[in-house]
């Protein structure tokens, strides 16, 4: 894309920094839109869902039907509020903390793919990272810095308590979260999110959720830990308004306060989308509509090029957005159903339940995969997973000279890849 922009501005320098900057800005604007529009919808949804759960209507007036513009009105109110910095506060860190939280949430979106691109090369991500899962988890873990700094810099005991609780909670929950994420990574043999998503194409029985009973269990552990790590009720001890006033954001008002919330809703969507990619087939719908269509029409080359591939990509984006929104809805539902846990219950939940269950599931999934036991995944496999994972070797085979291809072709693995690549899809 940078080359494309530079071909207009600087035809002789394809990697001039201005073109790269414009490309980066386009990506940044799109990601910020995902987070901001997401927050707009999710906050409205939260109000409606909580209203229904508490047997009332929620917002009904702003924007005509269903009060769908309520969040915009809330936002206007927040912009109009006075921006207060307490006299006791460390004003530099106090002002910086919300942006730090938001930056961490935003940076994790950089590596999140929204569709596979339907080619061998790359996914629809701002930047496809080879070790995407690891990158997303590492960056998402930084969000807690904003909360701790806010807690410390506010110069208020409520804020400090909230920040320290958040620190204890997040440090604990990173362990089971990592254990849960390792299982799909192990099944896929890759940390690339695009590859992991592509491996689950075909019918919905190919999703990693249905790989074996253990992955089915571990998804629920993942979802619990994800909820805890994004500081969401019933794990929202950092704000615990019944005991800590408002926890780490007690002293915040106006726009800075709302930036914390944008970061929170952004992370909620992010962990839901990550769950969708790791367990629910990502951008692959429950039924392979476009693959069936292409084979019915006899377009064998559709996955790499053509308009249908692009439309399939757009459908993939719709799929993953839908799955992410479903995840966020479940989080909202849980928040308004379950009471908040105590801090000792939160830590017990993590170390005595989540970690052992995740560890047992890891061993179980390993056993299942190693012995290749039948489960729903074997029902209707779209194509061999090794073929998706090793697509780089197909690329290399294509790049090699005919004589070298002949040499490589001697090995069984290369033959298998050639056969499979020529066959189904």
């Amino acid at each position, binding site marked *: 894309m940078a080359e494309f922009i530079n071909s207009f501005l600087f035809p002789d320098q394809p990697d001039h920094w201005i073109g790269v900057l414009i490309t980066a800005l386009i990506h940044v604007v799109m990601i910020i839109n995902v987070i901001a529009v997401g927050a707009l919808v999710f906050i409205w949804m939260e109000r409606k869902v909580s209203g229904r759960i508490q047997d009332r209507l929620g917002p009904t007036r702003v924007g005509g039907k269903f009060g769908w513009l309520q969040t915009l009105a809330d936002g206007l109110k927040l912009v109009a509020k006075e921006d207060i910095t307490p006299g006791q506060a460390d004003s530099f860190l106090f002002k910086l903390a919300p942006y730090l939280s938001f930056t961490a949430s935003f940076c994790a979106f950089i590596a999140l793919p929204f569709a596979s691109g339907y080619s061998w090369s790359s996914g629809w991500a701002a930047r496809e990272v080879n070790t995407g899962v690891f990158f997303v988890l590492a960056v998402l873990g*930084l969000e807690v810095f904003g909360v701790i*700094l806010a807690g410390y810099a506010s110069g208020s005991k409520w804020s400090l308590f909230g920040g320290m609780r958040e620190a204890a909670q997040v440090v604990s929950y990173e362990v089971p979260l990592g254990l849960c994420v390792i299982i799909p990574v192990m099944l896929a043999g890759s940390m690339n999110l695009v590859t992991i998503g592509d491996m689950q194409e075909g019918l919905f029985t190919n999703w990693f959720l249905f790989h074996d009973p253990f992955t089915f269990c571990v998804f629920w552990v993942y979802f619990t830990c994800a909820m805890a790590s994004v500081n969401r009720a019933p794990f929202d001890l950092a704000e615990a308004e019944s005991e800590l006033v408002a926890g780490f954001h007690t002293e915040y008002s106006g726009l800075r306060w709302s930036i914390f919330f944008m970061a929170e809703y952004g992370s909620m969507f992010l962990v839901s989308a990550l769950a969708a990619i790791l367990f629910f087939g990502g951008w692959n719908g429950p039924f392979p509509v476009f693959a069936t269509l292409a084979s019915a029409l006899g377009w064998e080359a559709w996955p790499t090029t053509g308009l249908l591939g692009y439309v399939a990509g757009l459908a993939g984006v719709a799929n993953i957005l839908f799955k992410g929104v479903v995840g966020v809805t479940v989080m909202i539902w849980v928040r308004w159903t379950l009471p908040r846990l105590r801090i000792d219950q939160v830590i017990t939940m993590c170390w005595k339940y989540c970690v052992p269950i995740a560890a047992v599931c890891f061993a179980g999934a390993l056993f299942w995969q190693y012995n290749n036991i039948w489960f729903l995944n074997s029902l209707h496999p779209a194509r061999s997973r090794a073929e998706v994972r090793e697509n780089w070797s197909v690329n290399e085979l294509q790049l090699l000279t005919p004589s070298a291809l002949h040499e490589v072709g001697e090995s069984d693995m290369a033959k298998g890849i050639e056969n499979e690549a020529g066959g189904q899809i």
Partner: protein
Amino acid sequence: MNWHTLLFYLFALMSCGFAIAVVASSNVVRMAFFLIVSLASTAGLFFLAGAHFVGAMQIMIYVGGTLVLLIFGVMLTAHAAFVSMVTKSSDWVLAAVFGGALLGLLALTAFSVEDWRVARGDQAAVTSSEGEFASSIGQALMGMRVDRLSEGNSQLEAGMSGYLLPFEIIAIHLLVVLIGAAYLARTKRRVGSVTEGVQ
């Protein structure tokens, strides 16, 4: 100007500048924050070099590890708000001598490498290796150096065995540390709860 060069200067400047800010600041929590930015900029340098896995590791281990430092900073200074640390002048001298000696040694070593002193001629041919880097690191940790398989020199084949032994030693070491920490934390609490029960 090439975007790669521009970003390199940006990250390098941020990394060094905030490292100096860590030393210059007197507030523990601000120091921790500056350290986070400095380490994250170093991760940016790794990403710029195409080493995504190493960059993510840098964020996970070093930047994430600063979290614990930050917590301790908050806990130690929480009894009075925003305590500032005053460094004695003798400490300054000592730190300057040791830091300067290390810096001099590193600079001397870096400049003694012949290849690093002159810019390479075929810069256009250099491509970023955003390839299968993480898997070769993983395989090296499991005991095989895939990058050395085509090594013709039999003298260098010794390095092909990878890093399985150090990896295992570190793993066992960390496990021992973890169990030790859990044991220490448990015994202390048990004694406390017994005395509380007696009272």
